[in-house]
């Protein structure tokens, strides 16, 4: 039997996976199979599972939305070897044999969730509803409601059993830290390592290459790059490692998920870097329209990842909705791989002149309809997508209905936001770029520089050249040309985007998918005076979920600016704070916990005290004997006996804990 046949969405060829190594796992009690190389999310997608979770407030059905750390929906609880992780981002967890994967926040089951009644109550549960309701009668009233709210809130149930995972801390001191091993990071690393710099290269995924990984076209390049990296004794590569904090003095914190490969489950790396390059890439934005949360709708870039890395097609009948040029390639690639792409809907009016002739031809020859100046006005479906309504893009109001397309998958691309989180955490400023409709780093300091799409360089060529130059610069070397074997033998189409923050018209349009914050909620917050972005965030809980607003922040900011008729610059942005991705308390703490919380000092006579049956008390860092109880004696009785003995005869006291004094004071 061909095992792959059990995974209906898996293609027969391609992907960075090993089809000969099947991995069995359970999803909500159902036995499923993935393959080696899968993440939990890709394994679910391969099995054609669309509905994976329920949203936080309205318990609406949600599906896998992304392929990276920005995932707002596919947060599930995962149990392996008796250890349970709640709210696990399944897009970042490697699939392992015998994993038990379960949906959260639904009762009695994922498909039929009683909490979904909140969806019907949604007119009452608007933004800030806590503050206006649940108050009567009097204080007692709130106490009553609060009990229910506390039970209903919370996503996963973590239980009271002690965490059995092992954590440890590792220190690094390096010349150069490079965050992100995509095209930019790899190029810069090789440039510096060749000149003798001590480089630490960090990649959050388990494979390097970023957008290029798994791509058959770039296979040869990646193989060469990998060889150059592994051949260099100056580059230390950490995969499955996320840089989550950029602190003062170029101190960085990274967390490595070993995922069962070592005795330690998670490892904290504290890095002191002389210099740092942020090659963190960009995160694709969703598009906001009525019904934009229905399972079957996901990011176009994510679909590209699922296709190339995991050989998965995201649906049977696919429509693409975009406001920029990056999604066209995805359309063609999906069709090439055998998927059925019906149409590309582009909100921009004049795309035709911009598209390269060969791309246009490819769309035509593959029967992919192109709808320019059009938007998806509404997506239809409940637990999975059934149809999309295509309207004219008519600016501030919903235009004429052009047609309806039956489909089970809609890929969206709202443009790309550079991943500037660490730059901002480190104190870097941001500027809004009209050209890219995104926040870009304002300036690069000598200690921390952004490169590639993190710096608004949205082309392979520009990225690679800047990365190479930067690497050379850091080494203080005269510029040399990029070695031939490192040059990426491909150029991409220039990137164009036209802001589309939300599609007008009635219906629930979700800005924050995890916390169910809609366009109407933002309008309400603006009307009620919560206009500062910081207030907006707190009032609506936008961006406060476990995805930390990676997908929603810019859209919300722009929508608030629209509400206030202000520019995005004047509306302001919130501060990026650590951690970049959620980090466990255990990893952050490292191994100095439990008995090792603080050092324990024992006097030289400690064994003697123990032999006398002493109890100990804590005195600063020291353990000191309190009493030597005899059988049946209380502490008080022992103390009285001891005192009497000292009065009548003599006593000995162990003051070795006091022997060493350290007096310190500055001379004033």
């Amino acid at each position, binding site marked *: 039997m061909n095992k792959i046949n059990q995974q209906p969405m898996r293609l027969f060829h391609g992907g960075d996976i090993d089809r000969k190594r099947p991995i069995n796992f359970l999803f909500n009690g159902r036995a499923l199979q993935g393959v080696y190389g899968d993440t939990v999310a890709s394994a679910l997608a391969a099995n054609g599972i669309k509905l994976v979770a329920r949203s936080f407030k309205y318990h609406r059905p949600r599906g896998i939305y992304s392929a990276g750390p920005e995932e707002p929906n596919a947060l599930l609880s995962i149990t392996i070897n008796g250890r349970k992780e709640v709210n696990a981002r399944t897009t970042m967890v490697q699939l392992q044999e015998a994993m038990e994967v379960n949906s959260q926040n639904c009762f009695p089951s994922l498909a039929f969730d009683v909490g979904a009644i909140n969806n019907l109550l949604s007119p009452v549960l608007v933004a800030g509803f806590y503050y206006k309701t649940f108050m009567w009668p009097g204080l007692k009233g709130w106490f009553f409601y609060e009990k229910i709210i506390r039970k209903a809130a919370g996503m*996963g149930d973590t239980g*009271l059993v002690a965490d059995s995972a092992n954590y440890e801390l590792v220190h690094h001191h390096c010349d150069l830290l490079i965050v992100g091993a995509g095209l930019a990071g790899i190029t810069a690393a090789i440039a510096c390592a060749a000149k003798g710099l001590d480089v630490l290269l960090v990649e959050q995924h388990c494979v390097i290459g970023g957008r290029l990984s798994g791509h058959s076209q770039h296979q040869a390049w990646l193989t060469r790059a990998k060889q150059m990296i592994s051949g260099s004794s100056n580059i230390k590569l950490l995969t499955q490692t996320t840089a989550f904090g950029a602190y003062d003095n170029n101190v960085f914190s990274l967390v490595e998920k070993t995922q069962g490969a070592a005795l330690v489950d998670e490892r904290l790396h504290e890095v002191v870097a002389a210099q740092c390059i942020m090659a963190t890439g960009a995160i694709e934005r969703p598009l906001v329209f009525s019904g934009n949360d229905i399972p079957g709708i996901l990011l176009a870039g994510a679909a590209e990842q699922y296709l190339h890395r995991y050989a998965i097609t995201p649906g049977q009948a696919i429509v693409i909705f975009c406001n920029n040029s990056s999604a066209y390639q995805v359309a063609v690639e999906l069709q090439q791989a055998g998927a059925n792409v019906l149409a590309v809907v582009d909100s921009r009016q004049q795309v035709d002149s911009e598209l390269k002739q060969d791309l246009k031809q490819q769309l035509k020859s593959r029967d992919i309809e192109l709808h320019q100046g059009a938007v998806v006005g509404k997506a239809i479906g409940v637990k999975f997508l059934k149809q999309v309504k295509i309207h004219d893009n008519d600016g501030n109001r919903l235009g004429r209905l052009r047609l309806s397309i039956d489909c089970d998958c809609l890929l969206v691309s709202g443009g790309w936001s550079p991943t500037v989180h660490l730059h901002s955490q480190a104190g870097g400023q941001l500027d809004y770029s009209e050209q890219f409709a995104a926040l870009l780093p304002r300036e690069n300091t000598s200690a921390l520089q952004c490169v590639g799409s993190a710096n608004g360089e949205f082309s392979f060529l520009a990225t690679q050249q800047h990365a190479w130059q930067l690497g050379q610069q850091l080494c203080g070397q005269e510029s040399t040309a990029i070695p031939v074997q490192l040059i990426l033998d491909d150029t991409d189409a220039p990137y164009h985007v036209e802001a589309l923050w939300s599609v007008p018209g009635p219906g629930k349009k979700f800005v924050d998918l995890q916390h169910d914050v809609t366009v109407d909620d933002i309008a309400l917050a603006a009307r009620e005076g919560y206009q500062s972005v910081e207030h907006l965030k707190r009032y609506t809980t936008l961006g406060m979920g476990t995805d930390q607003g990676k997908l929603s922040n810019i859209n919300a900011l722009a929508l608030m600016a629209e509400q206030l008729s202000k520019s995005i610059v004047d509306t302001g942005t919130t501060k990026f704070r650590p951690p970049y991705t959620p980090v466990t308390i*255990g990893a952050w703490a490292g191994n100095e916990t439990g008995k090792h919380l603080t050092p324990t000092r024992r006097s030289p006579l400690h064994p003697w005290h123990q032999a006398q049956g002493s109890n100990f008390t804590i005195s600063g860092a020291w353990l000191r004997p309190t009493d030597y109880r005899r059988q049946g004696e209380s502490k008080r009785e022992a103390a009285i006996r001891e005192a009497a003995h000292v009065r009548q005869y003599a006593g000995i006291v162990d003051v070795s804990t006091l022997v060493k004094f350290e007096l310190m004071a500055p001379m004033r």
Partner: protein
Amino acid sequence: MKLWENLSLELNYNTMFSPRGVMIVAQSDGGVDNLLKRGNAMRMHGVDAQWLSEAEVRHELRGVCANADARLPILGALKQPRAGTARHDAVIWGYARAASQLGVDIIENCEVLDFITQGDKVLGVQTSRGKILGASTALSVAGHSGHMAAKLGIKLPIESHLLQAFVTEPVKPLIDTVAVFSGLELYISQSDKGGLVFGGEVDGYNSYSQRGSFSRSRDVMKAAATYFPMISRLKVLRQWAGVVDMSMDGSPILDHSLHDNFYLNAGWCYGGFKGTPAAGWCLAHMIANDESHPLAKAFSLDRFKTGHLIDEPGTGPVPNAH
């Protein structure tokens, strides 16, 4: 406490005040003595206080670490059952709305650049958006009292320090009270949304930067993972650092003696939020009557000169030890 209990109704705004109790856990014999003393002092002033045995602490803090597994044991706790938490944003919004309805203008994004004075009188302030004059001027700028008072030539017994705080992903109810550990310091509670909110000691050096140090953040994590062994698997979503006014005796300062028409409310250390209704009440009284509220007399600035310090932990004039 009564001000808190009635706040939501008074403001017609749900501040989500939740009296789930606050307990301070003793972790050494000396700590037990200290907290018992504090508990007795509270009761003598008519404030609720209970002593919880180790077993009672374990009953209330489910999942707390066993003494055999921890460096610092749990020996008991002092509990104030009527204390609790409130949603800080809601308190601010509620007050702001009520004040606005009473005719108070609240001007956002308006930085005070300097004071306008005439002799010993404070007439008003010069701001980034123009001049504002008033019969009275009150300085109530937690964290920034030091450099603002300096504009009037006043040196305060205050240093500005950083206090870090953290919040985790939301989980089903785990911790139903507010727990403070006195050994390696940690305070922790769970919000109605389900996130654990916790923090520890101040960073310990003068700073206005709102950027905490990594090693201090780790101290807090170590304590959290140790005291509650089940939460080390929970993920932290956000970390931030606020600037706090650390006074030299660890107690707040409410004073009207510095200049004419000028009132100072400062030095609340890391405990300002819990004092909000009382501090506001006393400050209003002071502004209206040009004299301290009887309850706030002891918090005058001259206590540092006369020796009537209110130094609860007894650590002396070292802000980073409070």
